[in-house]
């Protein structure tokens, strides 16, 4: 059969033709544009409308941004330069160029002695040396003028890196401390540094004697050790109790602002150690803190402190003990029901009424406490969602393994529940970080408050957009990083492959 066929057909192709290329409209950019931008009449219309929209926005913003003036001493100068160049519109970025240090750090003092002795040594010698300029007997007007001249001479960048080395180092170490928590591929030993970081940061930022944070840290370690020893000898509950008693005994008067303790042990120890070995940095009061640094300090402390509190509250709300549950529900609902501003005003106006007579403590610390409590109530609800989403079988499995409550929570329930609630947790953190701008209303100098302060000067009176854009971008970068990180974490922890 095949033979006859082969004979009757004149030609039979025995090789495959190479595939022809698709028609021109079906490949590359044209196809992409047709499918994504002009798939139907309505879509085409939408595309044209949005291109027009983008064009009109960009044509308004881009010239203004790109033709911006970076070198000027005041808004008036900016306008003069703009008219001189014949531009119809131009941003006055000069205000950022001149004041970015202030927006970042507020009125946090620079390390002038370091700057003077490193970068201004000749002039320092001419002025009579370190002692003459910065010493106790130095004339303050002359000193202020000297410092202003020095900063103008050595430039903002040098002042940034060396004048503000304390907050910068605190930030750099924060990155080091946070990295092993965020990325599990880093060595686990770094976690010890994360534990020590709060004390390092307090020392770097607030200064004072190094023995304050050191003795607090040692005291905490001692209390934990006492708790551990007692727990090993006579049960977890007594151990916890012993730990609490030890903390009370050591810390009842931990900080110098409240003289209410029964055993004011720590200040004495600190005093003695400091007299023996005076190591320390210049002490800086919280009133001088400001700028974006303040947002980071409040945000970071709020995030770190609110997570454990929020988890405890969520567990409390799920508790089978009616009283505990009732307390947690009341706390969460009351905190969540009232805006943060009202809580901040409460912290600044009313807290003194609730504390023992005569106590008065740092506004910054009060704000951190309030922000922490506020965020923890929101976190509690997020974590509760995660706990509720977990199948009941997981709880029962933990029980049937004979785990006690805390072990079951720590080993079985919380790892899964927290994983489910990661997006919500990170959203709460982003919200907390954004809410740090509200402290401007109770008199702390956050970046937005500083934009008002800058606008209040004669040079920069009437400047709005440049400052708002700069501050907005600062916040955007941090919040955007947090949201992307949460997406990365979700993908990484996704164990069910769907």
């Amino acid at each position: 059969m095949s033979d006859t066929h082969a004979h009757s057909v004149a030609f039979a192709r025995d090789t495959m033709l190479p595939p022809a290329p698709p028609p021109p409209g079906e490949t590359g950019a044209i196809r992409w544009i047709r499918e994504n931008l002009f798939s139907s009449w309505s879509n085409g219309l939408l595309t044209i409308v949005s291109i027009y929209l983008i064009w009109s926005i960009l044509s308004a913003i881009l010239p203004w941004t790109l033709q911006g003036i970076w070198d000027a001493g005041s808004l008036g100068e900016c306008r003069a330069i703009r008219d001189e160049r014949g531009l119809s519109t131009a941003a006055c970025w000069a205000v950022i160029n001149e004041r970015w240090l202030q927006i970042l750090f507020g009125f946090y003092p620079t390390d002038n002695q370091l700057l003077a002795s490193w970068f201004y040594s000749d002039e320092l010698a001419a002025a009579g040396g370190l002692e003459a300029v910065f010493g106790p007997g130095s004339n303050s007007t002359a000193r202020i003028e000297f410092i202003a001249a020095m900063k103008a001479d050595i430039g903002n960048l040098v002042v940034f890196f060396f004048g503000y080395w304390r907050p910068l180092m605190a930030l750099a170490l924060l990155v080091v401390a946070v990295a092993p928590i965020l990325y599990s591929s880093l060595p686990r030993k770094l976690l010890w540094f994360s534990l020590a970081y709060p004390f390092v940061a307090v020392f770097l930022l607030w200064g004072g004697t190094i023995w304050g944070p050191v003795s607090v840290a040692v005291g905490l370690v001692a209390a934990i050790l006492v708790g551990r020893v007692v727990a090993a000898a006579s049960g977890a509950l007594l151990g916890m109790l012993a730990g609490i008693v030890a903390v009370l005994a050591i810390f009842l008067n931990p900080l110098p602002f409240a003289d209410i303790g029964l055993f004011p042990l720590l200040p004495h120890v600190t005093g003695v150690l400091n007299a023996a070995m005076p190591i320390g940095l210049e002490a800086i009061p919280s009133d001088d803190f400001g700028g974006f640094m303040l947002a980071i300090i409040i945000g970071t402390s709020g995030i770190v402190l609110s997570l454990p509190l929020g988890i405890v509250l969520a567990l409390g709300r799920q508790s089978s003990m009616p009283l505990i549950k009732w307390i947690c529900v009341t706390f969460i609902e009351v905190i969540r029901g009232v805006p943060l501003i009202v809580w901040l005003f409460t912290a600044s106006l009313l807290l003194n009424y609730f504390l023992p007579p005569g106590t008065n403590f740092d506004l910054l610390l009060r704000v951190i406490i309030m922000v922490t409590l506020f965020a923890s109530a929101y976190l509690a609800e997020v974590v509760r969602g995660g706990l509720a989403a977990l199948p009941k079988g997981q709880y029962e499995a933990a029980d049937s393994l004979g785990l006690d409550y805390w072990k079951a929570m720590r080993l079985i329930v919380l790892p899964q529940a927290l994983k489910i609630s990661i997006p919500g947790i990170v959203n709460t953190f982003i919200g907390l970080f954004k809410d740090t701008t509200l402290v401007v209303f109770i008199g702390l100098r956050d970046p937005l408050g500083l934009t008002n302060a800058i606008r209040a000067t004669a040079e920069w009176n009437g400047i709005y957009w440049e400052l708002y854009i700069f501050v907005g971008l600062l916040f955007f970068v941090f919040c955007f990083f947090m949201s992307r990180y949460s997406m990365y974490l979700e993908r990484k922890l996704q164990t069910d492959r769907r």
Partner: protein
Amino acid sequence: MADVTEPPRESFRLSQLLYDSRYRSLTIQVVAAMLIMALLVELVDNTVTNLAALGKDIGFGFLWTTAGYDINQQLIPFSSQDTHARAAVVGILNTLLVAFLGCILATVIGVLAGVLRLSKNWLIARIMTVYVEAMRNTPLLIWILIVFAVMTEATPQPREFREGGSASMILWDSVAISNRGVYIPRPVWAEGSGLVVAVFLLSIVGIFALRWYARRRQEATGQQLPVLWISLGLFFVPALLAYFVMGRPVSLEYPELGGFNFTGGVQIRNSFIALWLALSLYTSAFIAEIVRAGILAVSKGQTEASFALGLQPNRTMQLIILPQALRVIIPPLISQYLNLTKNSSLAIAVGYMDVRSTLGGITINQTGRELEGMLLLGIFYLITSLIISALMNLYNSSVKLKER
């Protein structure tokens, strides 16, 4: 046959309070109760001592004394001779007004942005992504300040609306946007306008009745009524008829430039506009994400099943997708409304006279009653929140999947 062994009868030991899980929870609760009581006693005691030291007492009598300050936006009449309590009510109404209007605008923008972000059109989807990310990752306070700056700095002064000036009114000379506020026409209700309003309200009731009847009829007979056209007709025709029959009793009073400012019409203050727009834009970004998540949460099989049943696309959306998506959307949506209401306390940034700046601001400053003022303010917000979350719980339980 072996006897059933009785469990040994234990006598109660004190250590069981700690180590027996039957009693331990009791112990913990008693200890917690004592600690809470001690804390409360300490707080109250401190407060009483501190107040006594300052020579103050606790009392709410200040609410009935003369306020002595003016409020620049009032929904009910208020003068500086009225009481602090009335000032608080004016503030509460202002808070509720901006919250209510904010919720509406935020929902409109948010739903639009959320749907468009799912659009097949690449460009539209990208624009909406940029919008949502920019709004969500920047503090609300910055947006309020930016919108306020736009309203006060980038808009013309009233005198530029004069003949030959650089600015002009929009929408057929009825709305003026100036740096002193936005001026819109004011409706003037002449005699007989009550009837027009009544007819209009009746026709709205009629529309609902019609829809109810149409559904009943369709369920009974399978025949559909042209509901949309009849509704549109009902909406416009009777009210317009009444309007002309009564001799056009409702008219508009347009804002006009007189002297250095506008007279006539209604002035909407820039502080209100800034707060309203910024709150709406900010919240709309969150609502957009909620809507997007809600639509994505309805599985594709539902759409396919609906098509397999022969339903048309718009009926599919109406009867299959939306009811399921709404179940996911509504609870977080309501909590966004709650957030918006609480965020309206940022009115302080632009000087909008909400309850925080009347009751929690000027009243406190004038009377020195921080404790009472903040307490009342907190209670107001708490009650608002609790009412809204009660409504949410009601809704949740009504749409909950009925299982087992």
